[in-house]
């Protein structure tokens, strides 16, 4: 287990973030949702505490907690008044090492997962973006983190136990702690609580296998919901910030190109965004726009046009605005132990080492417009994955491009 501690003595709070290599990518193919269900089950009683005891202790410690699964990890985190940290670490050590996994609560947990799946189906944006992820990363890495109805329905108690025993161990796990805490003490607390946790080898990650294309989901919705994605480089790649700055210029802030040119100048939509998502071995730029059906084709065309033509008129001021924005965000992160703990854990997972706020600031500060331009020229966005949900199918701008060339 890797332990990362960042003291922030000016705060009254502390936070931790635990990442365990038990994500959806190691679920058996036919049991989609097993990692999420296991993540729920481990919190239903652990050590000498019942499920209700755990909640009472957490509330009394003032813990604001979260848990969930991602492609490669199961995550548990909480922020709290600093004086609660020691007990909180001890408690979570019990949860991830000695959970009861009570068989008589499996049905309840299963029902909970099914509720979430049904609710997501009523949410058009979620449906579009989930379908898009699957197209982008392929059937294994792109599978929904909360599973499928079929998968969830099949899971047995022994599946949960087996998943827990195979994947909940110290190998490649991380605990990041930030806030008003003495680092020597914090290391000691983690040593005392997690020191005996067994460390096993971790399953190698699969390669992503998504492809470009267009999928339409019919719905009599008020808006047409448009999702699009293309392949890019992950966080940690030497060129990452050159790529990321371009996405920032496109989508971060009110003067960003998509907001200004698609929404503010033409009034085509209320929401239009693009952002980066990284796995260790792959990454994507994911975008979304929602607009009424009669303007959907134009919105899609204009949005992709802006992305493809980013380099045509790049200017220094755009890059500077983005740099100032990131600098401000990094400085303001010093005000929140929860936000810092979570960045520490995700940076370490992605990069294999922690990165200090100062290092990150200077990497961003050192970027030049030429570097951004050259990167984008050498790696133009393309092979889009597009998903729409609405009354009518749109035409894929990539097809019309091809046919006009022919």
């Amino acid at each position, binding site marked *: 287990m890797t332990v990362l501690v960042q003291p922030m003595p*000016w*705060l*009254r*709070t502390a936070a931790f973030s635990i990442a365990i290599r038990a994500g959806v990518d190691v679920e058996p193919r036919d049991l989609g949702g097993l990692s999420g269900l296991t993540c729920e089950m481990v919190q239903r009683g652990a050590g000498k505490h019942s499920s*209700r005891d755990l909640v*009472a202790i957490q*509330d*009394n410690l*003032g*813990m*604001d*907690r979260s848990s969930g699964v991602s492609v490669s990890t199961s995550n548990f985190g909480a*922020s*709290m*008044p600093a004086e609660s940290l020691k007990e909180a670490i001890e408690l979570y050590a019990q949860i991830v090492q000695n959970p009861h996994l009570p068989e008589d609560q499996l*049905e*309840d*947990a299963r*029902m*909970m*997962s099914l*509720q*979430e799946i*049904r*609710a997501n*189906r*009523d*949410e*058009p*944006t979620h449906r579009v973006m989930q379908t898009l992820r699957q197209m982008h990363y392929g059937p294994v890495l792109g599978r929904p983190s909360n599973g499928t109805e079929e998968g969830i329905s099949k899971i047995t108690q022994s599946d949960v136990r087996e998943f827990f025993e195979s994947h909940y161990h110290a190998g490649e796990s991380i605990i990041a702690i930030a806030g008003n805490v003495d680092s020597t003490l914090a290391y000691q607390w983690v040593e005392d609580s997690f020191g005996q946790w067994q460390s096993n080898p971790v399953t190698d990650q699969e390669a992503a296998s998504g492809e470009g294309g267009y999928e339409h989901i019919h719905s*009599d*919705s*008020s*808006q047409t919901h448009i999702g699009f994605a293309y392949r890019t480089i992950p966080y940690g790649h030497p060129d990452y910030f050159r790529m990321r700055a371009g996405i920032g210029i496109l989508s971060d*802030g*009110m*003067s960003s190109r998509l*907001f*200004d040119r698609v*929404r*503010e*100048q*033409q*009034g*085509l*939509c*209320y*929401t239009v965004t693009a952002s980066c998502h990284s796995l260790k071995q792959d990454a994507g730029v994911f975008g979304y726009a*929602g*607009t009424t059906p009669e303007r959907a084709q134009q919105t899609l065309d204009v949005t992709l046009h802006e992305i493809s033509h980013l380099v045509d008129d790049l200017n220094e001021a755009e890059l500077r*605005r983005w740099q*100032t*924005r*990131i*600098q*401000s*965000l990094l*400085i*303001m992160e010093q*005000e929140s132990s929860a936000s810092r703990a979570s960045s520490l854990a995700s940076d370490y997972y992605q990069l294999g080492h922690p990165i200090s706020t100062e290092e990150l600031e200077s990497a961003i500060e050192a970027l030049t417009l030429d570097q951004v331009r050259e990167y984008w020229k050498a790696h133009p966005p393309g092979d889009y994955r597009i998903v729409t949900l609405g009354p009518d199918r749109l035409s894929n701008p990539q097809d019309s491009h091809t046919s006009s060339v022919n």
Partner: protein
Amino acid sequence: MPEFRETTLSNGLRVAAEIDSRGYSAALGYFVQAGSRNETDQQSGLSHFLEHMMFKGTEKRSAADVSRELDELGGQGNAYTTEEQTVYYATVLPKFQDKLVDLLTDMLSPALSNEEFEVERKVILEEIAKYEDQPPFGAFERSMEVHYGPRGLGRRVLGTAESIRAMTASKMREYFSTMYRPDNMVLAATGNIDFDGLVNQVEKLTISWNSRPDVSSVGFQPDDPQTLPDGIALDHHLYVPDLHQSYLVRIGDGPSESSSDRYASRVLASILGDEGGSRMFWDLIDTGRAEVATVWPHEFTDCGAWFTYLVCSPDDLIANRKQIESIFNDVALHGVTDDELNQTINKASAGIIMQSERPSNRLFGLGSRWLTNQEHLSTDDRLNRIRSVTVDDVSSAAKTYFDGGHFNEIVVSSEEK
């Protein structure tokens, strides 16, 4: 400890600040007493539409200048509109305080050009369409319309597609001149703030605000209470095709911002409906019977509401509603326990401490409270109020609000009624 300071400028604009010179950031916001409850039928959606227009340029700055300058300050800025207020805010590094004040203050003298008005009308219509597609498909707006009537507090913040299509820029200018008067506004600031510098700068920048033409004597066309505003319906059932869940919103009377039992009500809400350890959680969420089952009080200036929200499979809606009713009946009859109260107070106290760590989080409570009640509650004041709530206080709030009483219910489902 942060220091509280306040003053009123010569034009009547009130300024209130909670200053913490150790902070990494400075948050600033204008709070305007203009919300949907102030609108007439013809003005429906204007407070919110106007909020969008404040980003669309002034005499000195084009729309693009406003967006660009906000981004140049690296700020996290935005705006929102409620039934009672419109708020414009941003958080920046302290070194940018002066520039932010200059920009935000200028934004509040908008050009309101016809061209920008027409483009923005489309964006607002898109925003309305966006929420029509999102769970719970307008059920909260409908519950307010039914409970308070479609005017006043029941008027929907975004307006209706009909009212927005019929809106004119000249109606907006009149509304602006009537509502955006300095004595109807507060400038609030939290974090690492230079208060004297702020007051001096704003005094100069807003000197002309009182000379805005007062058109309130023009008089807006009064509403006919015998009719429904355009685009409004009052059915208690909303039909949406192809849903996988059903959605229930219940609204009943609750404490106002000045009710003495509002802290007891918040504690009660936490005991009954918090996610992760309340009575509704253990009965309905932990067992997988519902996806959402929760309850909370919403305070307005002169009245309040208790909202109950349930999301579950259509087959379970009736049984779950019955279960929630029995939870309400039980708490009205038997009150709450010492253990429940202590656990909730511990959780809520920690929540207040954590929430207060960021100046941007403190801004909204400060500005909104100063605007409506001229009252400031420090973090320690709020902690003391929560910690002094007793079992009797909570049990008595439960009796007041959950022992029968009038309520309305809206159900959204794919079942034809």
